[in-house]
Every structure is written in structure tokens, then in C-alpha cells.
């Protein structure tokens, strides 16, 4: 029963979020602010994690296929497909759920307990739309960019592992990442990322927006936001993969 209550409250919140937006100029300004907060500020973590993961996958794949019958360019191909199909969309979304999701939940939670959301409501402002919609729009616009960035940087990380770590010849690696390339994989990754961005922002906003109590509850809401977003990302991954690649 509690699950249905959560789903119902979440759907009502989403209805308010997409209903009666304020002035377009204010929405635009808010979206720009949120792009900086949820997008640009995540550049660093995406670059660092992707570069290391790209390098590690390269080393691990090379270690596992040390067989004279298997061509070494397969290392590049495996790294590329791992990044495209899973890491840069799903794994990156799980990381962003931790970083962006907890930030959204705690920001809204603090606004709730310090009566800032009430202040918006008594001014006659649709607080859900004013606070949540810009975050969702910013994430839908910017998370796919972060996904593409992760793919590029991850592939570069693999290249660094080849050149600095002497795993395989860099030319073989580059041949591998170009071999049997399917552009469809990129649209698959980006489609998943759009769904994930909606999950992360809306679920985190839901937990933050409905905080009752004090600082302890804000912390709990933040944790719940990350856990629930992560579970829903994994569930969505399964459903989307089955639907798109099925």
C-alpha cells in the first residue's frame, strides 16, 4: 500500500511540475542555472572516471584474450562497445544519481524545512514547476552531452593504456574501435541517458520536495533518492535494452 501511495504522490507531483509553468524568461534563466549545477559541474567527475575506466577495460580485455588466435584489435572493439552499450550511459547514470540526485534531494529538502517552498506557494507560484522543471530540462539536455563526453574520454583512456602501458599497439587499438562500428549504438546510449536523466531528477526531487522534519530527514531523503534512483535506473536499463535491442 505504501508503494502505491508513493507512486500516487509522485504522479501528482509530476502533474504539478508540468502544469502552469511561470514566465518563459524565468524558466530559461532557471534552466541555464541548472545546466551549470547539474551539468557543467559534473564534467570533472565524468572525465576522471571515464578515462580510468577506459584504461582499465583495455588492460583487462587484453589480459583476458591473450590468445594468438584472437586478433588484438578486438581489445579496441570490446572497449568501444562496453563504453557505448553500458558504461557511458548506465554506469555513468548511477554515478550521476549519487552526485546530482543527492544534491537535488538535499537542496529541495532544505528549502522545504526552512519554509522557502512555502514562501513560493504563498506568493502564488507553482513551486514544483519553478523548482523541479528546470532541473529536469537541464538534465535531459545535458546528460546526453555527458554521455558522449564519457564515450570519447573513455576511448582516449584506452588509447593512453596502449601508449603508456604498452598493452597493445595503438594502431591496433584504433583499428579496433573503428571495426564494425554501428552508429545505432550511439542513439541507443543517448536514448537510455534521456530516460535516466528523467529518473534521476524526478525521483530525487520527489524525495526532497516531500521532506518533513529537520536535518536528519533531509539526510535520509538524500539517501533514499540515490538508492531509489539507482534501482529504477537498473530496471529501466533492462526494459529499454529488451525493447530497443530485444
Amino acid at each position: 500500500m505504501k508503494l502505491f501511495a508513493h507512486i500516487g504522490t509522485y504522479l501528482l507531483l509530476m502533474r504539478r511540475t508540468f502544469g502552469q509553468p511561470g514566465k518563459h524568461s524565468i524558466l530559461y534563466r532557471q534552466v541555464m542555472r541548472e545546466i551549470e549545477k547539474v551539468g557543467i559541474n559534473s564534467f570533472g567527475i565524468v572525465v576522471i572516471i571515464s578515462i580510468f575506466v577506459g584504461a582499465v577495460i583495455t588492460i583487462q580485455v587484453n589480459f583476458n584474450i591473450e590468445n594468438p588466435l584472437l586478433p588484438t584489435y578486438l581489445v579496441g572493439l570490446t572497449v568501444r562497445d562496453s563504453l557505448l552499450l553500458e558504461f557511458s550511459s548506465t554506469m555513468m547514470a548511477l554515478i550521476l544519481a549519487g552526485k546530482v540526485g543527492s544534491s537535488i534531494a538535499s537542496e529541495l529538502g532544505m528549502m522545504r524545512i526552512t519554509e522557502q517552498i512555502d514562501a513560493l506557494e504563498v506568493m502564488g507560484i507553482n513551486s514544483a514547476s519553478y523548482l523541479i522543471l528546470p532541473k529536469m530540462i537541464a538534465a535531459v539536455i545535458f546528460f546526453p552531452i555527458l554521455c558522449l563526453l564519457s564515450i570519447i574520454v573513455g576511448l582516449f583512456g584506452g588509447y593512453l593504456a596502449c601508449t603508456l602501458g604498452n598493452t597493445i599497439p595503438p594502431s591496433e587499438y584504433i583499428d579496433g574501435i573503428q571495426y564494425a562500428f554501428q552508429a545505432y549504438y550511439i542513439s541507443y546510449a543517448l536514448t537510455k541517458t534521456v530516460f535516466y536523466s528523467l529518473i534521476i531528477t524526478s525521483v530525487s526531487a520527489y524525495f526532497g520536495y516531500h521532506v518533513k522534519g529537520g536535518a536528519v530527514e533531509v539526510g535520509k531523503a538524500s539517501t533514499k533518492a540515490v538508492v531509489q534512483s539507482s534501482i529504477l535506473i537498473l530496471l529501466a536499463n533492462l526494459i529499454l535494452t529488451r525493447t530497443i535491442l530485444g
Partner: protein
Amino acid sequence: MIEVKNLFKSFEGEFVLNDVSARFEPGKCNLIIGRSGSGKTVLLKSIAGLIEVDQGEIWYDDQKFSHLNASSRQAIRKEMGVLFQGAALFDSLTVEENVLFPLDMFTHQNRKEKLDRANFCLERVKVTGSNGMFPAELSGGMKKRVAIARAIALNPKYLLCDEPNSGLDPETGIIIDNLIKELTVEFQMTTIVNSHDMNSVLEIGDKVIFIFRGCKSWEGSREEILKTDNEALNKFVFATNMAKKIKKP
């Protein structure tokens, strides 16, 4: 004018407001007083529309607020300024942006006109030279002043204040009270102040309503409060030993 008629509100079967009726006149500071947990914050939030009452009517002049749809309520809320207990300034905005906020949302003035209005409001509450500061950099009294400036930015007809001087020293508290009083008279607002501070009652209480266990127990002026024979109100007003000595003669 704001009027509430026969308000009932309960939480988990326990009445927090029990048949409360009152009339709040414009140009006057109407004080709601009572012990902590007596129901005065619920009453104020019900009037502001932040809590839905179980039964009863809330009137803003000739409009029955409690029965309006969301868009009509929003129209009234644009005429309402609310000062929250903790000021509720937006953390991510500067002092100036906080006061500009309602102007940006609801007016079509140009940038200069909005800035002029924001600066007028800030000067009116005696906050100058802090336009670029963030709420975290302000003292409690300054926060309350900025919150008042934001509340009056749109020239509201109604001003609702929830414990405006809580957390402030008595001197700053009286300054904030007097500021509310001055603005009420100047702009002929219907002001409702929620308080349990006797200094506020004696300083600005044109009309005082005493809430006791969710019921309106007494109503009168600040002069009458000192002579009342209402036992619960006497316990509340003359709670300290010093106050009891004043009452005795």
C-alpha cells in the same frame, strides 16, 4: 479585511483548531497569541492557504478563499505578503534578488523600475548597502527586515507574520514589531501577527486574539489584556514572577 468563520482542523483525530472565528481589520496589527502548540501557527497557515481546514470559511474581503479554485487563490496570494518565522529567504539569491523575486515573477516593469522598487523597499526597512550579500551572511534581524522588504514588494493588501521576532534580542524584536506596525498603517494592510511574545502584544497589538487548546479563548485590545479575568490568558500573560508582581496591585 480577513475573516475566519468556524474553522476546524484536526490531525490524526485530535483537534488543533476547534470552531475558531475572528475578524481582522485593515490598518491594524491583529495579534494571535497563545502557548506553544495551542494552534496559532496552524491558524495562520490555514489563513495563508498552506493548510487545508476540515471545516469552516476563510474570507479575504468579499472572496471566500477556502472555496476558491487554484487559479483564483493564486490571484489573492499575489496580494498577500508573508513573513515566515525563519525569514525563508532564498539561499541562492542575494538580498536584492530576493526582493526582486516577486517583481520578476508578477510584474512587467522594466529592469530599472524593478530595481527602484526593490531599493525603495530595502530602504523602507532600513537595509542599505547589503544588496549583494547572501542570506547566510546576514544577522537574524537583517534577515527579517529583508523578508519584510520582499513581502511588501508588490504592495500587498494582507500581511501575515509568523513569530516575526522569534530568535531576536528584545531590542531588535521591538524594532521589527514597530516596523510591521508602521508599514501596516502606511499601506493600510490587514496584518496578522502570530506571537507569544508579550513585548509584541503590548507594543503593537491593536487587536489581540488568544488561542487556547485550539479554541479562541479571548479577544480584545492590548489595554484590556492587563485587566482580563480569563484564567488561561492570565497564566499566559503573567507567567513570570516579575509580571505576577505587576498584576497583584
